[in-house]
């Protein structure tokens, strides 16, 4: 940052942002200087609470009403910090386009995407409805929306997640903005879709001349997209360098730890093997969990059904960790729910340690459920918000054991120790804990009855990278110590690799491949698995660029 680029478009100097919470000013951004030149891509990387989104949202003046901004934000010579509403309205959507994280909620569900893009155009340009519509179709074409002339009349829910995000980008580009802010544009997407959107953003750099401010928590995402990267922590920039320099030689300890925390898929070459995978090793007499030709269907309309899981046969042996990977809609979570009887099979069977639970009633399930612990994806929502966490951990004990109150309390303390939480947190409520602490509570609750099987459904996907690394380590330690079998469900191959003995890959309800972890990741037998592996972003610009070329060559 010693010399600013020749034509600096965005210039932020001495920016401080504070939020008033309970009559106190809590700083979110503490003195940031930043310059962004025309056509440049700058990535802001940081974990939740680092102030990266706050900083970005301050540019178009989209902060909450309790925010206080000081310092200067100049976009092409116009001062935006504390600017009046009229100036900001003129800038928003015109000079600055914003791509939000969750395209489903950022679009209004009752209007077509075309209508919403047209609205953005007509807010700033004096054009007729027909001209605006033509422009909307053009924009959709620009973002590689398939069949744009038809899709323009689609409602958000009729599009897939990736298509919605493309529409969102098209809307942001509607008035040829000078600056495009993308706030976690791919976080809500599947990895293969994420790869497509990243390819698009990378490609857009040559098609439009907007500068891009890319905000993300994922080092892998920015590896080959960004010209420069700024790493933020607690509202300050701890390191700022060109992408190549940052990945090659991170200076600040925080950057180093962040890079280290990113789960790496082994760097070996990935190619589809010609050899048929050997049959899964003969299973031990009674697997902890066993699906036989399991099929699950849901009613999707008065006469139609939707097959979420289609003929899956899968065993989890005692003490074995099986990673179940798949993209959203692959049926992996449904299968996880079926394992505890929360979802009933349409046909086939599921048994727990030899007990067939396929047709058991809620009452009949009580006994087998004693031996299963479940860790849910979002620890924030899987704990009752009105219960102190100690009570939440004690619930399985109260339900299934006749322990006295004192004995239960002692056990809760023991469990809190096991997951490295202070006993004093027992009377806290979930909202008073951090995401990582909450997930530890979730794990403690799952382990309360010393289960023989743990079902972990995306237990770390709601967490920051560095926290995710710690929680994964904890899970691994606990598994090694207590030797429970585990069905570990995740969309993230790198996370799965960390824990699993065997990996099963699901796609559209079917099990496409399963085998020892090493084999599935190094010598996948299926194209789909290979594509999945190739789409995982790695925090290495060269590797990323190589993979992107491969992907584009294939397409």
């Amino acid at each position: 940052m010693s010399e600013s680029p020749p034509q600096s478009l965005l210039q932020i100097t001495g920016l401080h942002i504070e939020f008033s919470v309970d009559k106190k000013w809590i700083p979110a951004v503490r003195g940031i200087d930043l310059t962004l030149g025309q056509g440049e891509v700058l990535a802001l990387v940081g974990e939740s609470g680092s102030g990266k989104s706050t900083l970005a949202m301050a540019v178009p003046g989209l902060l909450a009403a309790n925010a206080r901004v000081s310092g200067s934000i100049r976009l092409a010579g116009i001062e935006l910090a504390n600017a009046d509403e009229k100036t900001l309205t003129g800038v928003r959507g015109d000079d600055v386009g914003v791509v939000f994280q969750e395209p489903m909620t950022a679009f209004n569900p009752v209007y077509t995407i075309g209508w919403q893009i047209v609205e953005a155009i007509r807010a700033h340009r004096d054009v007729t409805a027909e001209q605006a519509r033509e422009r909307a179709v053009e924009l959709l074409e620009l973002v590689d929306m398939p069949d744009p002339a038809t899709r323009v009349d689609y409602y958000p829910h009729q599009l897939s997640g990736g298509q919605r995000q493309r529409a969102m980008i098209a809307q942001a580009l509607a008035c040829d903005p000078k600056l495009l802010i993308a706030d976690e544009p791919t976080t809500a997407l599947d990895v293969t879709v994420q790869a497509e959107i990243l390819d698009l953003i990378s490609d857009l750099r040559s098609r439009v001349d907007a500068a891009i401010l890319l905000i993300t928590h994922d080092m892998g995402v920015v590896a080959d997209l960004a010209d420069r990267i700024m790493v933020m922590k607690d509202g300050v920039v701890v390191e700022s360098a060109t992408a190549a320099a940052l990945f090659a030689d991170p200076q600040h300890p925080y950057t180093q730890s962040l890079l280290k925390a990113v789960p790496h898929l082994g760097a070996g070459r990935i190619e589809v093997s010609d050899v048929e995978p050997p049959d899964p090793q003969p299973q031990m007499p009674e697997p902890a969990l066993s699906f036989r030709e399991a099929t699950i269907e849901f009613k999707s309309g008065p006469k139609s059904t939707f097959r979420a899981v289609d003929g899956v046969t899968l065993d989890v042996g005692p003490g074995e960790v099986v990673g179940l990977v798949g993209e959203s809609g692959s049926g992996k979570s449904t299968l996880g729910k079926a394992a505890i009887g929360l979802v009933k099979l349409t046909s086939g069977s599921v048994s727990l340690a030899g007990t067939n639970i396929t047709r058991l009633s809620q009452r009949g399930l009580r006994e087998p459920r004693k031996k299963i612990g479940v860790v849910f994806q979002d620890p924030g929502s899987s704990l009752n918000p009105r219960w102190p966490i100690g009570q939440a951990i004690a619930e399985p004990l109260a339900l299934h054991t006749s322990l006295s109150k004192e004995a239960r309390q002692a056990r809760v303390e023991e469990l809190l120790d096991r997951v490295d939480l202070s006993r004093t947190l027992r009377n806290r409520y979930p909202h008073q804990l951090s995401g990582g602490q909450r997930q530890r509570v979730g794990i403690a609750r799952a382990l309360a009855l010393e289960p023989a099987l743990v079902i972990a459904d995306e237990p770390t996907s709601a967490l920051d990278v560095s926290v995710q690394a710690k929680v994964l380590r904890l899970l691994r330690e606990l598994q090694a110590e207590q030797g429970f079998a585990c069905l570990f469900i995740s969309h993230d191959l790198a996370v799965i690799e960390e824990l699993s003995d065997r990996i099963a890959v699901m796609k559209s309800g079917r099990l496409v491949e399963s085998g020892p972890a090493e084999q599935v990741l190094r010598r996948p037998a299926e194209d789909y698995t290979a594509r999945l592996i190739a789409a995982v972003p790695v925090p290495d610009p060269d590797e990323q660029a190589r993979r992107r070329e491969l992907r584009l060559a294939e397409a």
Partner: protein
Amino acid sequence: MTEPAGVEAEELVGQSSVWADAWKYLRTNPLFLIGLTVMVVMVAMALFPSVFALGADPTDCDLSMSRRPPSAEHWFGMDLQGCDYYANVIYGARTSVAIGVLTVIGVLVIGVLVGSLAGYFGGWADTVLARITDVFFGIPLFLGALVLLTVSAQRSVWTVSLALVVFGWMTAMRLVRSSVVSIRGADYVLAAQALGASSGRILVRHILPNALAPVLIYATIAVGTFISAEAALTYLGIGLQAPEISWGLQINVAQSLIGSSPHLLFFPALFLSVTVLGFILLGDALRDALDPKRR
């Protein structure tokens, strides 16, 4: 992920629970204490009106003193019949508070019960219960109460309350049902189910504490509506009758005399407002107490 100060380690005695924490919060919440004081005074007034009336007899009337304004001797003045208005307003607390409280309790019991069953079990149970509710929604409160009270042999606080409950519980049911439906799908409910908790336990321990806030707010405001509904029924000639004393009756009589004797409207209306305010404070405090994020 650092531990937020280990200072409290010392005072940690045992595991707290929702209700224990709620009570701890309520004990120190000024709004709750004010609301509680108002309630206690009103209930005491309802139980022992003669104490509060300071010996004045509400039925000791002198027609020549009709509609006298407030004076040192008669604080609230005299009513249409020339009775001491202060004593009348005090004695009115009994029926008014009783009708308000009884009706709201009845509405809450039916509304929460029907609403949570419909919301939790869904399917045909929901269809049947929701349609029954719709049928009741179709009957205006007054029309329904009118019919019911006309056929009842005697009109007392109990029958009036019953009539108001029977035709007034539907909004509460709708509120509970919609919050239960939204909470039923929450992950923590699924989590409890996966732990093997029974339906009853899930409904009572997990769902209801999270679902009660909207209906509590409604109920505390509805107290006032029900107290004045009794007045309206009386006006139609099917509520309580003349020798009975209630704020509703007083407000009713006073509304035609507001130009010449505003004190007749002012005092019972003031008492009614203060009672309703007390309920609302209690309701707000209870809602906050049950929500750890607001405490």
